[in-house]
């Protein structure tokens, strides 16, 4: 089977090549040329991904009605011993093919859009080089055949995210944001690495296929090891920590809102559609291990996801920076995906949550990228990030307005837009397994509709703001990706996802649960209507409500003081109680020992340097005297 997919490594390699070309020679070519090279490379990857998806899902993927995991390329990259070796390869299975489609689609749209959005920026070629680097890393991550390859690309994704957030490196806030993102995710990756080491130590393999073989409950390391949990559970919790860092789950989410300092297309690509779902993908990739060997770890995933989605949704209701609202909305939606994985079991009907999570990942990528690109078009027109500076933009930006509205309806879960179908499946899965999480998600669905339409009405309706110059619609190169993504947001929900992506590869028929569907649409409509009343026309209702909520509103507006808490913990507690003593020990013990040795050597040499007078005649004198002494010794004392 693998021979049908032998070309798939090209999907990953082509962006790398365009990165090398634009990165090395970008300064010498016209900016537009580097943009076209990046876009063309991505277009080829996109075409190959579509071809792969067709071949996998419709022609060769199934054996006995079950989708198989196919290793298309496997290359021994680093070999330490027979059991310990790191391979690089391409693994084709339903979720990796789905991710290939998601990444190449969104990345292609973002590339096209960026040609318009970044026009005239200094470092245009650099921007496209980094975009290609990111696409390469992300594609390498999703096709990883083993957990170590995934870790390598995971870090590459992190570094390209860092480079792109810090794209405007003259701006101190962008530099700070890029550092924050890198350090927070790097800290989480430490957990990931510990998890990898624990997991591969107990199971003796890095390989995903071996790890997730059907019904292969991992028996080694399943005994109680520490604090009532088995080694395997601990390792999976640590791996999830890495995923939580990348996917901005509470409490490692603090970098994502700040990451909005990057150019808007970057936010759309990395911080909405692709990189931030890497954590979800990681859990999904190891899902059989989670579900069979460590259900406790899976519960952790579910609760963290559920809490994050509620937490982020509440904050999103209070923010005024449109990109930050979208960032918190992303966190909230990723929380949904994590929660869906958390309430899922393995196989057949039990695996509904897994399916729903992947489905939501897919639809969310489309409409969230659209929302960000639309927000980018708005910012491009108004030159401000705050919606208090905007209003009644529907008159000036018709295309952006309609596409944005479609995306808002999709994320709010109004049928027949994409978000309805996937969110419905998540709610059903949650309802079947965990009532508490179901009610949390149900509330979040209402909040989502509310804050998205709060944003929509404030930007596109409401009072007519006085603009310095009349906002104008973005050029075609920016609006065409918007329209394509809007089309995707309307239609991808109709894909019969159960036929393609399920936890065990077998087909799962989806039933519409009318009671839950109606209830979820009802709460979405309530949210939209509330937003309509508050923000459609200018009035003082929002202020009144904000005042009546008082402390809660203020806390949410300040993101529940999590940043301040982090600063307090790091600056006051860690710096004072840990770092200062360590620094003292370093200066006064470690350094002092070294300095003492150096001082003694120096002092001694100062004292005895007179012997080395540098006078040739002294040396000759001493030499001759020595010869005399030796001669006398030989003559009189050593008579043989």
């Amino acid at each position, binding site marked *: 089977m693998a021979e049908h997919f032998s070309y798939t490594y090209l999907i990953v390699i082509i962006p790398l090549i365009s990165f090398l070309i634009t990165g090395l020679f970008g300064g010498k070519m016209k900016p537009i040329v580097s943009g076209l090279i990046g876009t063309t490379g991505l277009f080829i990857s996109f075409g190959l991904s579509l071809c792969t998806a067709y071949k996998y899902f419709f022609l060769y993927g199934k054996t006995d009605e079950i989708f198989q995991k196919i290793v298309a390329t496997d290359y021994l990259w680093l070999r330490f011993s027979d059991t310990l070796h790191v391979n690089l390869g391409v693994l084709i299975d339903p979720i990796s093919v789905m991710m290939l489609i998601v990444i190449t689609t969104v990345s292609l749209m973002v590339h096209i859009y960026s040609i318009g959005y970044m026009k005239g920026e200094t470092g245009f070629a650099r921007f496209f080089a980094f975009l290609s680097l990111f696409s390469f890393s992300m594609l390498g991550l999703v096709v990883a055949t083993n957990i170590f390859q995934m870790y390598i690309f995971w870090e590459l994704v992190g570094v390209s995210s860092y480079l792109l957030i810090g794209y405007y490196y003259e701006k101190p806030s962008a530099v700070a944001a890029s550092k924050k993102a890198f350090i927070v995710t790097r800290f989480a990756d430490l957990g990931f690495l510990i998890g990898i080491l624990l997991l591969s130590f107990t199971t003796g393999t890095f390989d995903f296929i071996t790890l997730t073989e059907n019904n292969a409950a991992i028996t080694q390391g399943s005994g109680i090891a520490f604090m009532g949990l088995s080694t395997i559970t601990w390792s999976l919790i640590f791996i999830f920590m890495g995923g939580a860092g990348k996917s901005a789950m509470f409490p490692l989410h603090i970098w994502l809102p700040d990451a909005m300092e990057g150019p808007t297309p970057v936010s759309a690509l990395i911080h909405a559609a692709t990189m931030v779902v890497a954590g979800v993908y990681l859990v999904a990739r190891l899902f059989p291990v989670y579900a069979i060997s460590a259900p406790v770890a899976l519960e952790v995933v579910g609760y963290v996801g559920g809490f994050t989605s509620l937490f982020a949704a509440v904050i999103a209701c209070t923010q005024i920076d449109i990109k930050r609202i979208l960032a918190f909305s992303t966190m909230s939606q990723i929380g949904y995906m994590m929660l869906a994985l958390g309430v899922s079991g393995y196989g057949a009907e039990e695996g509904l949550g897994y399916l729903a999570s992947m489905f939501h990942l897919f639809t969310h990528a489309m409409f969230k990228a659209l929302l960000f690109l639309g927000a980018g078009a708005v910012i491009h027109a108004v030159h401000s990030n705050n919606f208090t500076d905007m209003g009644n933009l529907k008159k000036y930006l018709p295309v952006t307005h309609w596409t944005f509205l479609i995306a808002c309806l999709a994320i709010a879960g109004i049928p027949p837009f994409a978000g309805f179908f996937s969110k419905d499946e998540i709610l059903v899965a949650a309802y079947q397994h965990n009532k508490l999480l179901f009610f949390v998600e149900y509330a979040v669905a209402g909040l989502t509709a509310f804050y998205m339409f709060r944003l929509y009405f404030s930007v596109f309706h409401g009072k007519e703001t006085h603009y310095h110059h009349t906002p104008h619609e973005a050029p075609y190169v920016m609006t065409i990706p918007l329209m394509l993504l809007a089309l995707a947001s309307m239609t991808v929900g109709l894909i019969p996802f159960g036929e393609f992506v399920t936890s065990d590869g077998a087909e799962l028929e989806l039933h519409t649960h009318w009671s839950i569907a109606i209830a979820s649409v009802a709460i979405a409509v309530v949210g939209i209507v509330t937003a309509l009343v508050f923000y459609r026309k200018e009035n003082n209702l929002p202020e009144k409500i904000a005042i009546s909520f008082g402390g809660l509103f203020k806390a949410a507006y300040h993101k529940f003081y999590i940043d301040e808490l982090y600063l307090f913990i790091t600056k006051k507690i860690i710096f004072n109680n840990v770092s200062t003593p360590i620094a003292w020990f370093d200066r006064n013990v470690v350094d002092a020992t070294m300095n003492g040795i150096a001082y003694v050597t120096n002092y001694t040499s100062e004292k005895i*340097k007179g012997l*080395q*007078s*540098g*006078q*040739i*005649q002294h040396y*000759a*004198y001493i030499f*001759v005297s020595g010869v005399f002494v030796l001669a006398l010794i030989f003559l009189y004392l050593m008579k043989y």
Partner: protein
Amino acid sequence: MIENIPLSHIIVVSSIMFFIGIYGFITRKNLFTMLMSTELILNAAALNLVAFNKYLFPQNIQGHFFALFIIGIAAAEASVAIAIIIAIYRNFRNIDPEKINDMKY
């Protein structure tokens, strides 16, 4: 004629030459006289070589050859040494070895 002079006499002469050379090398404050002292040391050694060859192994000629080598090398060495001394003089306006200490710690 030479048969009447015992070997010890020649050795005494060469020893005196040698120690004059050593003394001059250690005490003189002028690179040229130090160079001359080294010539004395070399000549003392050459004299010894010739004398021992003549008295102890008259049938061999290696000692004579070595003496010739020493003379030749001494000439070459003298020319190099004088060149160095001139270069030093150009740089320091001085050929007192005690005052040439710029490279000292």
